[in-house]
């Protein structure tokens, strides 16, 4: 019906590659600041199947930055709002919405059909759990995080739990509430999906197992290798 939907993805994404993207399943964990934008970008890129996981409902403080937050949705589940908007962008995208908080190893079942895990969380403990799932299922983990003027992102291969290394020194638990501007989440989300695309296109410029850390105030970008 919408045969020109992906015309502007070409020629960077060939017709053959575009049709392959329909077969890709991405699990997005966290549908807040990062996850909302990540879900939209995956949809517009042409990823065929999205597995959305978040136990949270919208609240007023989300209105400054979260992609699917609206006044009328306050109190409603983030994953179902995301699913509705994604399906309005592309009715052919298969969306599984799970309103759950990931707790332990048994939750790996949500990821059995996923080809990638995208970390859009706001706490360290669940990130380490995602690192475990990535290794067990042998699928890459694309991390993103932010606070204040800074953001970071990286694609990590499933050879070890890189989240344990990334947060090795940090006291576990939910991140302290800090400034979370409208401008940071779209940047980090976009870079996460650029990494996904680079991986899917076998782009030689992809630097896996590297954390890119940037500051939008000072315009610094630091590459931190992991091994």
């Amino acid at each position: 019906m919408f045969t020109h939907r992906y015309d502007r993805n070409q020629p960077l994404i060939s017709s053959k590659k575009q049709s392959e993207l329909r077969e890709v399943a991405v699990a997005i964990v966290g549908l807040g600041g990062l996850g909302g934008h990540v879900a939209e970008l995956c949809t517009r890129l042409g990823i065929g199947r999205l597995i959305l996981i978040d136990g949270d409902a919208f609240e007023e403080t989300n209105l400054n930055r979260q992609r699917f937050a609206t006044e009328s949705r306050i109190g409603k589940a983030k994953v179902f709002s995301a699913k509705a908007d994604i399906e309005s962008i592309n009715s052919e995208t298969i969306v599984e919405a799970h309103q759950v908080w990931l707790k332990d190893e048994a939750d790996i079942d949500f990821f059995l059909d996923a080809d990638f895990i995208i970390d859009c969380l706001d706490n360290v403990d669940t990130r380490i759990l995602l690192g475990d799932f990535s290794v067990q299922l042998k699928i890459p983990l694309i991390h993103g995080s932010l606070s204040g003027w800074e953001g970071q992102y990286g694609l990590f291969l499933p050879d070890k739990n890189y989240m344990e290394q990334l947060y090795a020194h940090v006291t576990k638990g939910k991140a302290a509430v800090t400034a979370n501007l409208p401008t940071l989440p779209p940047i980090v989300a976009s870079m996460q999906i650029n990494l996904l695309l680079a991986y899917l296109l076998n782009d030689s410029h992809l630097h896996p197992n590297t954390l890119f850390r940037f500051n939008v105030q000072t315009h610094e970008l630091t590459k931190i290798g992991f091994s």
Partner: protein
Amino acid sequence: MITVKLFATFREGRGKEQVFDEQVLRTPRDICTELNIPPDSVGILLINGFHAAFDDELKDGDLVSLFPPLAGG
């Protein structure tokens, strides 16, 4: 001498960079104490670009980088 590069909120009241004598401050833990940065508030600790531990011994010419953690989404 050791150069310590600070990032994000660690710069508040401390500047971007400080230089210390490795004979006086022998480990990243000593540096954190000197700079009043609790080790559990450090997200990433690098020595010469490689991940390091707080009790690693420092030598002349080392570059120590300290990043606060980012965990928000």
